[in-house]
């Protein structure tokens, strides 16, 4: 018999979908009902995500195989029907998504949910797509959820309108539509070769291919890898990112912080499941490592050259993608745990930073974020004054400037991975486990480990320089600073995100243990595969349970 708890895995998709659908029936003028519904939905999702996390950790008793929850949609057996699978990695990503989602939602109620129509339904649909992408165990279903959150993200990126948003939105949509085509080509090719779309089943079937089909399969995986790398903003597929993210309004950009990590998640998941069959190069291994290094270099140069603080945060997202790809591309799994820790920390930080940037922009008179030389050289003019949200938001909270300065400082430390916060813990763990990795024929750390260390430290240094420079220009330029009006609804989410980073550094021990557990279960994909396949054999094909 299925207990009520066994139905939990469907809720992260069903709840936002129903909430979003209900919201479409309400007029945008009924803001109270809309926001009430939105908060109800996100808090249910939060509770579900926390419960699922405890269930996969085994703290809540369940009869799941290896604490991996498998949910058969429509009770169709696994290789034929679509399954949702909750393991530790999925549960962590779900929780991360909804924490970021709640903060972005609180922030948006101060101003942004009023500037255009259908903000709240789109917000729910993007959550639905993200949750679904983290949960699904079916390759084609993964594509569908990708499309759901991307479609919602197109709408949210354009939210607030203005020519800058529309023009960067056009590029963003084009890139993602081409990515979707690649995804479709690879998924159908994989189906054509292996005859299955179930990711667990794929882990078994891919190993049994003959040489000719194996070649086709690896081609398909390479295309799949490219599609995921576009999403993950890996160099050279990431030129769309800084403009698109800088153009999006603050709460949306904050939510976008996790969207690149969906690509990383998909790479990790597929890489893990294809591990026993000898994963094709795109999923882990030398290629991912090289691409990661390229991304790090691109991000480092970009962050040094960038003067617009919105785009600066975009480059810091690219840096975090680069760090993750490089670390995950290293041989073995010792780096996976620390990488996941870094992922959590960087998502929370960049999310907070995107919101903070908008608040900081209220303090500046035009041009203070641009080097005065280049201001003259390029003849820049002020744009998008219509976006200025300070007048509408109203109540000024005391010591706003101190709050902003302190938050900016914390953010900068977190992004640059300086002590004492979680960014440092993550990077330290990454570096130390990279150096512990020994090559087979060498006694010391391998060259790739050293390259990783150098690239990460260099990118950290570049981030310190870039953020220090903007910090000085933003807060210490004499005379032209206005005391900003801040709403408590804008200050709270930023502080929540930053405090969760601080909590992450305080409880680094248990979190790291859990993530190391996650990494070791990723290294043993048969746990996942068995959970899905045995679930199938327990159930009759026709009829209930």
């Amino acid at each position, binding site marked *: 018999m299925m207990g009520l708890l066994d139905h939990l895995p469907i809720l992260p998709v069903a709840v936002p979908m129903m909430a979003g659908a209900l919201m479409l029936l309400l007029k945008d003028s009924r803001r109270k009902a809309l926001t009430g519904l939105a908060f109800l939905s996100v808090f249910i999702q939060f509770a579900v995500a926390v419960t699922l996390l405890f269930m996969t950790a085994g703290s809540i008793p369940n009869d799941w195989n290896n604490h991996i929850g498998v949910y058969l949609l429509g009770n169709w057996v696994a290789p034929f029907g679509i399954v949702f699978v909750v393991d530790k990695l999925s549960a962590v990503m779900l929780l991360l998504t909804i924490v970021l989602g709640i903060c972005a939602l609180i922030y948006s109620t101060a101003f942004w949910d009023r500037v255009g129509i259908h903000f709240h339904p789109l917000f729910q649909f993007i959550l639905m797509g993200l949750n679904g992408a983290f949960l699904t165990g079916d390759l*084609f279903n993964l594509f*569908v959820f990708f*499309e759901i959150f991307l*479609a919602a993200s*197109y*709408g949210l990126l*354009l939210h607030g*309108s*203005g*020519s800058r948003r*529309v*023009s960067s*939105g*056009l*590029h963003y*949509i*084009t890139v993602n*539509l*081409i990515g*979707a*085509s690649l995804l*479709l*080509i690879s*998924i*159908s*090719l994989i*189906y*054509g070769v292996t005859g299955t*779309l179930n990711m667990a089943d794929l882990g078994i079937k891919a190993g049994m291919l003959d040489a000719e089909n194996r070649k086709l399969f690896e081609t398909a995986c390479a295309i799949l890898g490219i599609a995921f790398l576009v999403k993950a903003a890996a160099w050279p597929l990431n030129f769309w990112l800084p403009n698109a993210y800088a153009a999006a309004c603050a709460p949306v950009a904050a939510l976008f912080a996790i969207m690149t990590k969906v690509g990383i998640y998909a790479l990790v998941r597929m890489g893990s499941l294809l591990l026993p069959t000898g994963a094709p190069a795109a999923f882990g291994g030398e290629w991912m490592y090289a691409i990661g290094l390229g991304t790090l270099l691109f991000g480092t140069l970009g962050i040094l050259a960038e003067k617009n603080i919105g785009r600066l945060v975009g480059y810091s997202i690219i840096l975090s993608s680069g760090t993750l790809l490089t670390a995950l591309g290293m041989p073995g799994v010792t780096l996976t745990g620390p990488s996941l820790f870094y992922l959590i920390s960087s998502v929370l930080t960049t999310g907070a930073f995107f919101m903070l940037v908008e608040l900081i922009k209220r303090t500046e008179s035009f041009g203070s974020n641009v080097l005065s030389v280049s201001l003259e050289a390029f003849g820049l003019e002020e744009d998008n004054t219509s976006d200025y949200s300070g007048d509408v938001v109203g109540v000024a909270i005391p010591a706003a400037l101190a709050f902003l300065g302190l938050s900016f400082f914390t953010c900068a430390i977190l992004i640059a991975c300086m002590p004492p916060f979680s960014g440092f813990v993550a990077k330290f763990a990454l570096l130390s486990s990279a150096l512990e990795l020994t090559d087979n024929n060498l006694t010391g750390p391998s060259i790739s480990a050293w390259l990783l260390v150098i690239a990460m430290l260099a990118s950290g240094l570049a981030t310190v320089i870039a953020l220090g420079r903007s910090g000085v220009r933003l807060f210490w330029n004499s005379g032209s600073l206005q005391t900003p009006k801040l709403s408590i609804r804008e200050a709270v989410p930023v502080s929540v995100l930053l405090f969760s980073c601080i909590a992450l550094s305080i409880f680094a021990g248990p979190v790291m243990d859990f993530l190391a557990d996650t990494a070791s279960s990723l290294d043993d994909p048969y746990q996942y595969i068995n959970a899905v396949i045995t679930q199938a054999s327990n159930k009759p094909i026709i009829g209930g349970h």
Partner: protein
Amino acid sequence: MEIIYSLAIGVLAGSGIWLLLRPRTFQVIMGLTLVSYAVNLFIFGMGRLSVGSPPIIEAGTVVDVSNYADPVPQALVLTAIVIGFATTALYLVVLLALRGLSNTDHVDGTEYNS
């Protein structure tokens, strides 16, 4: 049949990619459409090409499945068509918005006069 089919996919994809690389938004959306046609045909072809074979097996009969067409790619292609149609419609709106806001149909929203 296979050779005609793959040629059709190749021609559609090739023209689509060429159009995608053009600077006008209308050319880009035509390119995207052609590419998505090619992709849809490709998905369909992954179920192996056959003529006149039904995709649904009648209940209760024992049959040789090789006489039947694979229904999964047909389901996939249907989903892909719907999603592609919706995103193309959305793209069209953004395209028109950019045309209205920037007074040009260049993808960057500005003309580069050389």
